[in-house]
């Protein structure tokens, strides 16, 4: 066989971004004065030097084959002096210095990549998501397929800016919930304690398995002459922390896992500050390949939000103003006892006043 160089840690660190900045970014680094939207998906930054840099934002499916990425690179070479950037929501941003280059660039993106331009300002932004069945070891559902289905449904909302404020969405495939706090989230729920494989559990470190349970539901046990664990079913809340630690504790169930929709999360400190997502509706079937029930539920929320929210109100701020009673009335979702928190900070979520909407 070929003599190979021995592998050794190189500890190169992060790439030097200075080599990758668009020339206009390099010239105006730290000197930008303001920006404004030109049309959905297109905005301009103006520097105190007077220079302008136009950005065209294209939605990507995140997963890219090398040939597709090469076509992206060719566009960057043709229009953007060989530079491009990505956003944290999987969009690709192409930048040009001349306003007259915008339309030809958009045309090329549409013709060569078939990527839509949008996802800025008051639109339905590109969805951040996880791996799902495509490449994760823990998921109860898919990510890319749910995202594709939702983005197809809300394509017009991505390419237009018709909402009172930006709408950010995330999906997750297990209760680890890799996404951030977003306006709307699609998350998976398990409905049983983990099923334990008492044979393969010997590959796991049992003390770690026991200590990872947040509600102390896992206890050491001996079954059939083997060291294993048992799960106190009444205590278990089906979070799946043990499953991530040890695959022999199988939390998923293809027949019974369902999806739920959460609303009102926000990371920005703007106005009232960051907020958590709250349960809107639960028990939606995990229904590949198009998850139509999820799309229906998201549409219901968006319709009520669009009709009822004031300018600049994110979903959570709109609900904060109209109250949860009206949120459930406007969306038609049923409020159930499962909407009432029962975990650590439950009391902080109760209405401890006489403020009621009648």
């Amino acid at each position, binding site marked *: 066989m070929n003599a190979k160089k021995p592998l050794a840690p190189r500890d190169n660190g992060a790439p030097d971004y200075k080599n990758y900045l668009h020339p206009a970014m390099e010239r105006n*680094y730290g000197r930008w004065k303001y920006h404004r939207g030109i049309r959905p998906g297109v905005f301009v930054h103006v520097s105190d030097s007077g220079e302008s840099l136009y950005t065209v934002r294209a939605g990507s*499916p995140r997963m890219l084959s*090398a040939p597709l990425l090469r076509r992206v690179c060719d566009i960057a070479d043709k229009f953007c002096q060989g530079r491009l950037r990505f956003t944290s929501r999987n969009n690709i941003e192409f930048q040009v210095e001349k306003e007259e280059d915008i339309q030809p660039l958009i045309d090329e993106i549409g013709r060569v990549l078939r990527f839509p331009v949008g996802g800025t300002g008051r639109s339905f932004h590109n969805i951040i998501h996880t791996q799902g069945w495509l490449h994760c070891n*823990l998921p109860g559902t898919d990510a890319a397929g749910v995202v594709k289905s939702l983005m197809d449904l809300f394509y017009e909302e991505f390419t237009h800016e018709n909402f009172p404020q930006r709408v950010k969405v995330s999906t997750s495939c297990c209760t680890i919930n890799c996404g951030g706090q977003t306006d709307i989230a699609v998350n998976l729920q398990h409905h049983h304690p983990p099923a334990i494989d008492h044979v393969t559990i010997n590959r796991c470190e049992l003390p770690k398995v026991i200590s990872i*349970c947040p509600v102390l539901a896992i206890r050491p046990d001996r079954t059939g002459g083997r060291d294993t664990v048992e799960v106190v079913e009444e205590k278990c809340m089906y979070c799946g922390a043990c499953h991530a630690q040890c695959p022999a504790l199988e939390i998923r169930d293809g027949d019974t896992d369902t999806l739920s929709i959460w609303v009102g999360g926000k990371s920005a400190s*703007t*106005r009232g500050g960051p907020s958590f997502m709250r349960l809107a509706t639960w028990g939606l079937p995990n229904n*590949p*390949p198009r998850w139509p029930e999820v799309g229906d539920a998201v549409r219901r929320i968006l319709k009520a939000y669009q009709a009822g929210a004031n300018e600049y109100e994110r979903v959570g701020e709109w609900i904060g103003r109209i109250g949860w009673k009206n949120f459930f009335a406007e969306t038609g979702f049923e409020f159930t006892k499962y909407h009432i928190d029962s975990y650590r900070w439950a009391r902080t979520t109760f209405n401890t006043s006489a403020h009621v909407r009648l």
Partner: protein
Amino acid sequence: MPDNELKLPLLDQLEEGPWPSFVKDLKEQAARRPQVGQLLEQLEQSYENRWDYWRGTAINVPGYGGGIIARYSDLGEKFPQVAQFHTIRVIESPGFVYSADALRQLCDISEEYGAGIMQLHGMTGDILLLGYDNEKMMDACEALMDNGWDLGGSGNGMRTIPCCIGPARCEMACYDTLMLTKYLTDKYIGYLHRPEFPYKFKFKLSGCGNDCANSVSRSDMPVIGTWRDDIQVDQEAVTRFVKEMGQEWVIGNVTSRCPTRCIHLNGDQIEIDNRNCVRCMHCINVMHLALAPGKDRGATLLIGGKRTVRSGDMVASVLVPFQKLDSDGAYRAFSGIVERIWDFWGEHGNEHERVGEFIDRVGLGTFLDGVGLEPDPQMVANPRSNPFIKFEEYAAPRLDGEPHKAANVLNREPDREEDYEGEQP
């Protein structure tokens, strides 16, 4: 290659619709790389049975303790091409900026050694290169490292650091997010490659309170840009804005949305009570031609954000209200805080305990003592409402320690005289 024989009745339905289809792209790639066809076939089976067929494990490149997301297929006999189908996490360029040539190099490496598919970017901020078997994975890593790239983080160490676009293309940036990302990544690359913490530790860097890196809910230590002098106001631009939008609109959408009501419209002029401004960014976002962050800029350091497992979602809370980040000395001061946190949490944190969960367990007061920071009212929404406090000033004498000096506290008698050495003659 037999890709035209791929039978994917469920996935085929994801080729339709206006949004770019990952299935269509992967199918085209399957014609060039048969493993991508088998990847789709396995995914089709997942769609059919609502079941996942990947098993995760740890494989490491020599000298590294993370960066490879190893995946073995449970259907390896049926789909041998994806029996080993690992992902390589590669540290992204700060701000997600690239040259076309740099990305083409990633294409070359991914096509030479792997399935030629990648994701830009993963939730961690990493570039994800998919589809390597055990051996090719090593070769691909070698090629990546030879070309200046490096592996990203995984496991119980410092993770890859993502940041917003910062001063490279944003007027709101209050510190250089890209430079600090590179500084932290490079300085602590050992902690990233050779995990030694109780659990993962994530930084995310945002240049202002708009928090484009979603740091506050997704990272253990969000660094969020801010300023400590006055908001810069261009009153002529304010006048133009008020004239254009109308007084009523400005009151409804700017001043009345201020969380502390510290901004007022006086005719066509803006007045700001800067002492009560909490740097939320709303007025600046709306009136960005007229208002700008102040000139004395830095960042607020927060601690303890994370997502759901195990203790539920946690948003980070303020640790250092204002930290300058504009000089080597400021960077060193920031690093000092980081290292003291790692020391204290590393020493006392439990297995799989994120730093936010650790603070919940030991108390923020204890944590501040441990990392050598003074308490500050900006760290809390409210002081405590319960009276169950262990004042150190009034502490009962410890059996092996100094007797207390305060009055009005019941003296606790030692259980046995001979155990009590404190005041023996």
